[in-house]
């Protein structure tokens, strides 16, 4: 690489870092004060891009029209953020944090469909910035003038945020609330207003980050989850709540990506290494590396213990054997009375139930929230498919080996993850899922790349849908019961003790980290089993089985049913899968409907469906007593 191309890639990276920084700074601000991991932040970025596109069309492609559109779009997105805070999040600040997360997933779904409805499914390519379409010659290469402007905007915004935070009363309140929001309230500060204003500023930053990208990137519907993953990585690498850290991390990641593209394919010692393929994964590699060395990010500090945290989870209630047997009997009868379609749908539900129960095991009783549980589901699915197609193993062997392979991956991923806790842990699980996804997505010769693997059909004796359903029911049901039994074994008690009080658990001699690692491997294998059963029922596997969307689906299932109950995740999986099927068959905008339903449930049953029903039953009994 010559010096000139080095400089060019550096500038490219810095230009890309600007928007990344804006989005991440907004996310970091919002998280700091409200403690909400706002999954909808990427959606706000996407709206900023779409908004700028439309406003430029409206105002005309003049410098004034362009910059007016960018500014107006950012402000409009700020108002959307205010709307989200006032209409949804404000009502559930007292709910468990994970439930707030569920609400932001729902908002992602709703915004995606609003964008689909308003702007359609086609990519929209925006104009270049009028007046800035020329290129500047640097060391014999031409750099778009707009990129140089972006490079300047990053530090300017950083300076503006810094001034706002350190030189104004609002800034002092925000920083104080980041540490102890209850005390800020006791000093007479209206938290609701403060939260709304923080949401406004954070959302404006997201919207501005999006709007500024309009000359560089077409507006499309995939941006929301793509950019939220990037923003998570940047905030975590920089250190949660550290705006300076976000700036540093955005630059590191922006530049690293640019270099991966710039280097292209290199031959080292006879091996062809494609660096451009690394672009999708390099940020996650950086994040994994940083978190192992500095568990709180580059400039972050250990998170202060949260005040006024929600109460510890109540003890789990064991479902009775009669209850379980009745349900099992009902599930066994269904194919005899229902049609083929219902049987196939039930097979899906059974797979997702095991997926959801395994996720619940790790995030509920084991206390380690995973944002990347699809990794194991997907690895299980791919392992099954590849063992069958590439290694020629019999289907039965592939099916049984798949969970083992998912477990092996969980051994590696888990080793890193159990070293962290809280949001950092969640982000690292997301990172591993994305690393897995990008390998699967790009390794065409083995995994089939974006097409996936086809012809993954079960053995002849299982080919019938009804027979396959029974096998799925037996395997996944056994997995679920096994996980539940483990929860009530000494191992399960130790995990729950570790979740409720890590220090005390270690003080009585529990090797918490080892136990958590083992739990990781266990649920990884079980999710892998679910993925393998699912793969053979569909006959094909696509990279979406390992995507962020798949991970969030799992979270929605668990949280919808209720993380504090044992049966909740099963109910959540059933309702989510069934509802999605019904809605998707009837409208193109199934996401908005799903999102709306989830929001309704979040606002009406902050304990999850099963938790909420239990509460109703208890109240009813108390009234009668």
């Amino acid at each position, binding site marked *: 690489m010559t010096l000139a191309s080095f400089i060019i890639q550096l500038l490219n990276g810095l230009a890309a870092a600007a928007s990344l920084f804006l989005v991440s700074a907004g996310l970091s601000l919002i998280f700091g004060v409200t403690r909400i991991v706002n999954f909808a932040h990427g959606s706000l970025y996407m709206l900023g891009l779409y908004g700028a596109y439309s406003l430029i069309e409206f105002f005309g492609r003049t410098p004034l029209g362009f910059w007016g559109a960018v500014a107006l779009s950012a402000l409009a997105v700020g108002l959307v953020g205010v709307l989200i805070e006032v209409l949804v999040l404000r009502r559930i600040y007292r709910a468990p944090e994970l439930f707030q997360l569920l609400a932001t997933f729902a908002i992602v779904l709703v915004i995606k469909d609003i964008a689909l409805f308003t702007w359609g499914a086609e990519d929209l390519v925006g104009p270049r910035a009028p007046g800035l379409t020329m290129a500047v010659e640097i060391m014999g290469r031409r750099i778009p003038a707009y990129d140089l402007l972006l490079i300047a905007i990053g530090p300017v915004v950083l300076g503006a945020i810094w001034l706002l935070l350190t030189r104004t009363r609002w800034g002092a309140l925000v920083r104080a609330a980041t540490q102890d929001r209850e005390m800020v309230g006791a000093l007479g500060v209206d*938290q609701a207003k403060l939260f709304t204003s923080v949401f406004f500023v954070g959302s404006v930053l997201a919207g501005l980050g999006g709007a500024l990208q309009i000359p560089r990137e077409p507006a499309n519907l995939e941006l929301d989850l793509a950019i939220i993953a990037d923003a998570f990585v940047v905030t975590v690498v920089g250190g949660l709540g550290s705006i300076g850290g976000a700036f540093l991390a955005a630059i590191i990641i922006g530049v690293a990506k640019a270099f991966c593209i710039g280097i292209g394919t290199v031959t080292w010692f006879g091996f062809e290494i494609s660096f451009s393929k690394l672009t999708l994964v390099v940020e996650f590699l950086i994040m994994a590396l940083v978190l192992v060395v500095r568990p709180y990010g580059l400039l972050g500090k250990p998170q202060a213990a949260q005040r006024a945290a929600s109460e510890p989870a109540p003890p789990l209630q064991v479902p009775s054997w009669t209850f379980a047997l009745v349900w099992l009997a009902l599930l066994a009868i269904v194919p005899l009375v229902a049609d083929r379609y219902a049987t196939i749908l039930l097979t899906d539900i059974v797979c997702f139930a095991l997926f959801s129960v395994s996720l619940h095991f790790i995030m509920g009783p084991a206390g380690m929230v995973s944002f990347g549980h699809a990794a194991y589901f997907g690895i299980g699915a791919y392992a099954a498919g590849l063992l069958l197609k590439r290694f020629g193993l019999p289907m039965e062997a592939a099916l049984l080996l798949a969970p083992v392979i998912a477990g092996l991956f969980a051994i590696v991923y888990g080793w890193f993850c159990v070293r962290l806790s809280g949001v950092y842990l969640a982000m690292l699980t997301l990172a591993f899922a994305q690393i897995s996804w990008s390998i699967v997505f790009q390794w065409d010769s083995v995994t089939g790349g974006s097409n996936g693997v086809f012809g993954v059909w079960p053995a002849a004796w299982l080919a019938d849908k009804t027979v396959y359903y029974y096998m799925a029911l037996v395997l996944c049901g056994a997995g679920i019961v096994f996980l539940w039994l483990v929860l009530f074994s000494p191992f399960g008690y130790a995990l729950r003790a570790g979740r409720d009080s890590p220090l005390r658990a270690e003080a009585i001699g529990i090797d918490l980290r080892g136990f958590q690692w083992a739990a990781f491997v266990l649920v990884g294998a079980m999710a892998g089993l679910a993925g393998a059963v699912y793969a053979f029922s569909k006959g094909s596997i696509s990279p979406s089985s390992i995507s962020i969307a798949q991970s969030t689906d799992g979270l929605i299932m668990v949280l919808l049913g209720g993380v504090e109950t044992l049966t909740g995740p099963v109910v959540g999986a059933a309702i989510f899968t069934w509802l999605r099927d019904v809605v998707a068959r009837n409208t193109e905008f199934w996401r908005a409907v799903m999102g709306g339903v989830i929001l309704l449930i979040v606002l009406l049953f902050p304990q999850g469906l099963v938790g909420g029903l239990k509460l109703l039953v208890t109240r009813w009994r108390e009234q009668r007593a």
Partner: protein
Amino acid sequence: MLGVKDLHAFYGRAHILHGISLEAHAGEVVALLGRNGAGKSTAMKAIMGLVPPARGEVSFAGQRIERLPPYRIARLGLGYVPEERRIFTELSVMENLEVGRQAARSGVPLWTEEKLFKLFPNLARMRERPGGRMSGGEQQMLTIARTLMGNPSCVLLDEPSEGLAPIIVEEMANSIRALKGEGVSVILCEQNLHFALGVADRAYIIEKGQIRFGGSMAELAANDSLREQYLSV
């Protein structure tokens, strides 16, 4: 000024306050005495709305406040100084004071940074120091000063003498007398009877979430058996 009637409060499922009643008049210093775990801090948090009262009445400045959120209560002029101080460690002394600032209130002393620095001269020498790099005594001064920035007519002071060097405790007592001199009512939780005797006009004794005694400091000082039963360790 402040009246509490039959106040009940829970922490999770634990019933902490079993119907306490007390009152404080304008310009009065009232001590709430009791052993560790008797319910003193919970009483203050329940009055302030930080632990929502399950039952009972709290009235302040002629208004019922038991259903109000803490910030509304603070804005009525009721100040709260927590036991753990809860200084904003990342913020400087001046910024900590800024967070506490509220608009002037009629009929109540108006506090400015400069006036507070006269009351707590130590703070004046460390205006730009982050709260996290102050000694316990300095933090205790700052947490009181921060609450005073809200121009309260009554201050709830949770264990102001706890964990402080004797000389600082004496300074603290002086500050409380100064507040009384300004006409600010003070309700303070204490385990340190000696400290309370030096500053308070009246006292209540709380034990297992119930008020066991209410009377003047002189009555309490004269009654050995009362002190033996509820306060001695």
